[in-house]
């Protein structure tokens, strides 16, 4: 379901409420509803699948500990993403300098063979876009991911990142300018309806 659909947040809040009431299976429903999107977002911050997995696990453990906070959040989806963001940033901060991700290396998000295998269609343009996103500063890349892939408004992204909506919008514009330059070469290969 598209997160921009209000029913999506309602389902998240409902699962959180059921979890609070003792229904452990609600954890599975919450995972099935959100994990793919959260992993995709976490990977945009960590650039590594395993770190994104750790971030998702950390977030789910936090939710399991206090599901009422998610159930009562004004914007449950934004709240959930924010928890994942905090976990992902903690993981990134813990990395030793020598473990820093090199966007050109085979360990990277876009070029990692196992990751590419998980992409439904191994299109060159997909890999190019992801690689271009990875080259952006993390704070710009996450705004693009949340705006375009998660369908969030600037106001909602501001809730997630703790920045003002204007700052978020500026980052988005800067990011698009950079992406436009990076992706110019493949633009002609893509057809638009």
């Amino acid at each position, binding site marked *: 379901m598209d997160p921009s659909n209000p029913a999506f947040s309602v389902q998240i809040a409902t699962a959180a409420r059921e979890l609070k009431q003792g229904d452990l299976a609600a954890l599975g429903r919450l995972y099935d509803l959100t994990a793919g999107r959260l992993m995709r977002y976490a990977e945009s911050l960590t650039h590594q699948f395993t770190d994104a997995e750790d971030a998702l696990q950390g977030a*789910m453990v936090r939710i399991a*500990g206090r599901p009422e906070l998610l159930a009562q959040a004004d914007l449950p989806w934004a709240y959930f993403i924010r928890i994942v963001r905090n976990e992902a940033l903690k993981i990134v901060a813990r990395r030793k300098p020598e473990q820093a991700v090199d966007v050109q290396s085979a360990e990277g998000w876009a070029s990692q063979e196992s990751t590419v295998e998980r992409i439904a269609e191994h299109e060159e343009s997909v890999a190019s876009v992801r690689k271009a996103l990875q080259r952006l500063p993390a704070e710009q890349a996450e705004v693009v991911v949340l705006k375009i892939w998660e369908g969030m408004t600037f106001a909602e992204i501001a809730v997630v990142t703790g920045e003002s909506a204007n700052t978020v919008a500026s980052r988005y514009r800067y990011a698009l300018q950079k992406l436009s330059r990076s992706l110019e070469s493949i633009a002609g290969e893509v057809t638009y309806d």
Partner: protein
Amino acid sequence: MTEQQLELLIAEAGSLPPLPVGTRWRVLHAAGEARMQQRERRQRYRRALIAVACAVLLLAAGTCELPEITSLRTIGRRCALSLYRPVEPAFAVLLSQNAGSSDFPEGTDKAVGEYELSDDSLHRLKERQQRLMNVH
């Protein structure tokens, strides 16, 4: 490339890949365990609250001493709330025995107050309290 074209291009690259089964198991196992631990902590804490509330009730009535009340499992919501705050420090030791903590977290008084007691149970409690008072 227009902004709209660019956004479409990026959107097309955002397909959600299926996650490995192992990820689901790992994440849910960790979260489920955390939930169970949290539930056990809450149950221990609730039992401690009941003991504390009992203690408040009975000690304030002058009907028993601390060692006697740790096994009691009845609480009078309406009575306990009014008696809780003044004697709270004296019961840190009870929490320590029952929940492994000598702290009274914020909201303890609210939690005690939320522990519902039916009118029937309250009536029985009052009767028992009366009997204890008569004995003493």
